[in-house]
């Protein structure tokens, strides 16, 4: 009788849960449930994942959408490359790197219940161009037909570039040139897969359906965003897209960082989007040390020197400033050694291709490099300025108005004044400043900015920030802010990219060589690499950090 009961019970349970067992879990067995409360000063803009370009929205989209590939949503090294997500695996490129064939996972549904198919992948790739996604040009135009799509987005077909096979359940990409970073680019949120019938325009406050464990059920940019579980989600790979712990995610906007810190301390919020105000670091470190996580990420603060106008068109002046800048002071301005580290090169520590080298510290030069920055060399710097004959010139540092930027800009101004320049600082709202410093018409001499790559790759720093074709005179969209151009180094970067297709390590060595070349010509002053201080409420359990995303909301366990 007992045996019969046991058998019947097992059979009933098997019948009830067989779909979940076959397709994976919808929610973790333990610690699941509750509402996660997030805070931000302002809303992160459009919810359209192929248009949005804000980190805060990127983090939300990470738990709502999936691409063919993704970055791991668990703790791990910064330099980790993309892993398979909606694709079963990352394929080996064929045809000398020109062709990538992705096998799509089966039985995956969007949050509206529709089954994901290869046609959705093709439509989503097409939509990148049709909605004028910010990265359509730099990341996806090497797909065959991509260049035409950039010119005429409304009639974009990519018919020979992205091909669906609904029988074999595959999607084939044809590229115009081999691309070692193609899998990484597909992992970026602009390449997430949406239903084929998603409108070909920015969906604004209405989020399209996704395949992740959550769906955005309401969004009012003036007040809040609410996410609930996607009932059609079944976990297929915990590293790529883990099933979420919290049942709901409430994101509130309008809380300034000081208030958010206090609210987290008091348990009213669980997490905040902004950097912690520097004056609260000590308090958090002493009273809430067990609730503070310090997350590594590839964020670099640097000063871009305009190499096309005085005084920084002189190599001696650029070298002088690099020698003179007190990077230890910059570390202090960013919260001290626990949070920031001095930087001597454009590739941040932890990124692919990073090889430590410092030319511009006391006792070093390009012929006798040091491994790390030690101290400024003001005497050498003043000597170089004297040789350049530029002392006394007016120099204006353009900066954003955030406290850490202002502090660093004032430090730079002091250094320039000590070198003999008539230096001043002009601050602007960051949204204005970032476009202003890019436009050569504004004749910005030196500007302070930060760069956090979309994905971990040397090219995201070196090619994006310093290649000749990234300098567009008279345009607000010229991310090579220094206006620097060295065709030889560009060719070296091309070789590095080509070599990476077959041998990533060899490619990385060439990227390191390109980094050294840039630093010998110093079109920038790398200042500091910072870590992100993340306080969590007492309710939160577990390590919720992840490279690239910094934090994964689905992994918050609410006590």
């Amino acid at each position: 009788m007992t045996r019969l009961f046991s058998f019947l019970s097992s059979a009933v349970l098997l019948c009830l849960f067989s779909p979940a067992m076959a397709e994976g879990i919808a929610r973790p067995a333990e610690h699941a449930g509750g509402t996660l409360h997030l805070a931000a000063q302002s809303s992160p803009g459009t919810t359209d994942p192929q248009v949005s370009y804000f980190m805060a929205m990127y983090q939300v989209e990470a738990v709502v959408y999936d691409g063919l590939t993704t970055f791991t949503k668990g703790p791990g090294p910064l330099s980790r490359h993309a892993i398979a997500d909606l694709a079963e695996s990352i394929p080996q490129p064929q045809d000398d790197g020109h062709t990538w064939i992705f096998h799509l996972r089966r039985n995956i549904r969007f949050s509206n219940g529709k089954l994901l198919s290869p046609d959705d992948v093709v439509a989503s790739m097409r939509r990148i161009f049709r909605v004028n996604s910010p990265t359509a040009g730099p990341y996806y135009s090497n797909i065959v037909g991509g260049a035409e799509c950039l010119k005429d987005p409304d009639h974009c077909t990519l018919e020979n570039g992205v091909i669906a096979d609904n029988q074999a359940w595959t999607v084939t990409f044809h590229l115009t040139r081999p691309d070692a970073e193609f899998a990484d680019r597909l992992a970026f949120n602009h390449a997430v897969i949406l239903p084929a019938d998603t409108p070909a325009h920015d969906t604004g406050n209405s989020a399209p359906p996704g395949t992740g464990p959550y769906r955005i059920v309401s969004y009012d940019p003036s007040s809040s965003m609410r996410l609930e579980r996607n009932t059609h989600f079944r976990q297929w790979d915990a590293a790529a897209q883990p099933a979420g712990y919290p049942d709901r995610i409430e994101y509130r906007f309008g809380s300034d960082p000081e208030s958010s810190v206090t609210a987290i301390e008091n348990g009213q919020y669980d997490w905040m989007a902004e950097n912690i105000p520097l004056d609260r670091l000590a308090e958090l470190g002493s009273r809430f040390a067990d609730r503070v996580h310090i997350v590594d990420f590839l964020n670099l603060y640097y000063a871009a020197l305009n190499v096309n106008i005085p005084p920084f068109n002189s190599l001696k002046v650029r070298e002088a400033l690099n020698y003179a800048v007190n990077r230890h002071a910059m570390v202090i301005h960013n919260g001290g050694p626990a949070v920031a580290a001095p930087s001597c090169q454009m590739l941040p520590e932890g990124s692919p291709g990073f090889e430590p080298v410092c030319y511009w510290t006391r006792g070093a030069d390009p012929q006798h490099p040091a491994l790390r920055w030690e101290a400024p060399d003001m005497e050498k710097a003043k000597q170089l300025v004297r040789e350049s004959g530029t002392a006394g010139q007016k120099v204006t540092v353009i900066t954003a108005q955030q406290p850490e930027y202002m502090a660093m800009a004032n430090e730079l101004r002091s250094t320039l004044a000590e070198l003999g320049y008539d230096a001043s600082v002009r601050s602007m709202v960051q949204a204005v400043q970032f476009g202003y410093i890019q436009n050569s018409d504004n004749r910005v001499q030196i500007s302070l900015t930060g760069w956090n790559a979309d994905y971990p790759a040397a090219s995201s720093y070196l090619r994006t920030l310093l290649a000749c074709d990234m300098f567009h005179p008279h345009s607000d969209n010229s991310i090579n802010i220094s206006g620097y151009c060295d065709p030889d180094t560009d060719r070296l970067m091309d070789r590095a990219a080509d070599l990476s297709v077959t041998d990533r390590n060899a490619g990385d060595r060439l990227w390191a060589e390109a980094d050294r070349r840039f630093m010998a010509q110093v079109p920038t002053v790398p200042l500091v690499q910072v870590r992100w201080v993340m306080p969590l409420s007492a309710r939160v359990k577990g390590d919720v950090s992840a490279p690239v995303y910094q934090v994964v909301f689905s992994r918050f366990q609410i006590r």
Partner: protein
Amino acid sequence: MFSSGPWGQAIRALRYNRSAMIALAVLLALALLCALAPIYARHIAKTDPFTSNVAGTVLVNGQETDIMQPNDNPLHLGLSPIGPTWHPQSFLLGADSQGRDVAARLLYGGRNSLIIAFGAATLCILMASCIGIAAGFFGGITDAVLSRLMDIMWAVPVYLFAISLSIVTITQGLKIGPFTIASDNLMIPVFIIALVYVPYAARPVRGRVMTLRSAEFVIAARSLGVPRRRILVKDILPNVLPTLVVLAPLLTALSLLAESSLSFLSIGVQAPAASWGTIIQDGEGLIYTRPMVAVAPGLMIVITVLALNILGDGLRDALDVRETSRRSG
């Protein structure tokens, strides 16, 4: 010592007003202290209050101490600037987030704040006098045009008006004909603040002139054929002057507050120069750890504005406009 004329009487009355005299003494002391800022910075504190010094050290009780001090917490998070040492030679009021001496900056900042406040009040009174006297004395179309212009300016909230003008001038400087004023020149906040308060000063001046215009001694002068210019200079202006003198401290106080607000919003005095408003902004991020950075300039503003208001009250009592006009009439 003083003549027995109305000004002499007014000064005598002011001298007997203890509150007003204390306020005047406080203002003079503040102005003197601020004027001595370079001497304090160079010879006493031996510091450059405009240069970042976060990596520097200072001698405190004979011991070399980091200006930015690491916080004693398990995660070693954050650094705090040195707090008040109460020694004039070594960071009397502590350091700000740039490692600069707060006391020295407070004096330099006070110099700029007071220059802007007095400068703006003076310029405002000059402009308001011209407009108010012209409108009140000439009347007719002149009055209609000038009064409507003042009404339009009055309709725009003062701070909104000042912020708008500041944002434009802060990026491009100010060009008036062949003259260009750089965006970091103190004349820009002086001009902007003076301009936004013109309607507030011009209207009472106009009212006073209109009253005077129908006063018996002015009517008598007219009927005797005295030229208008002479009436204006000899009869109207001397009687408007008390109104302007009473307005001056109040406008100075308002200008000081406006300057502080604009500088706090980064659209007044530009770095590395300081004003009490910019120092409050510097201290905003240190309010939990080093409140003195924001509190000290805040107190200076409160004391100065209070002193100016008390002095204004004293002047109003001493130069009672209505009483004077009755005497004049």
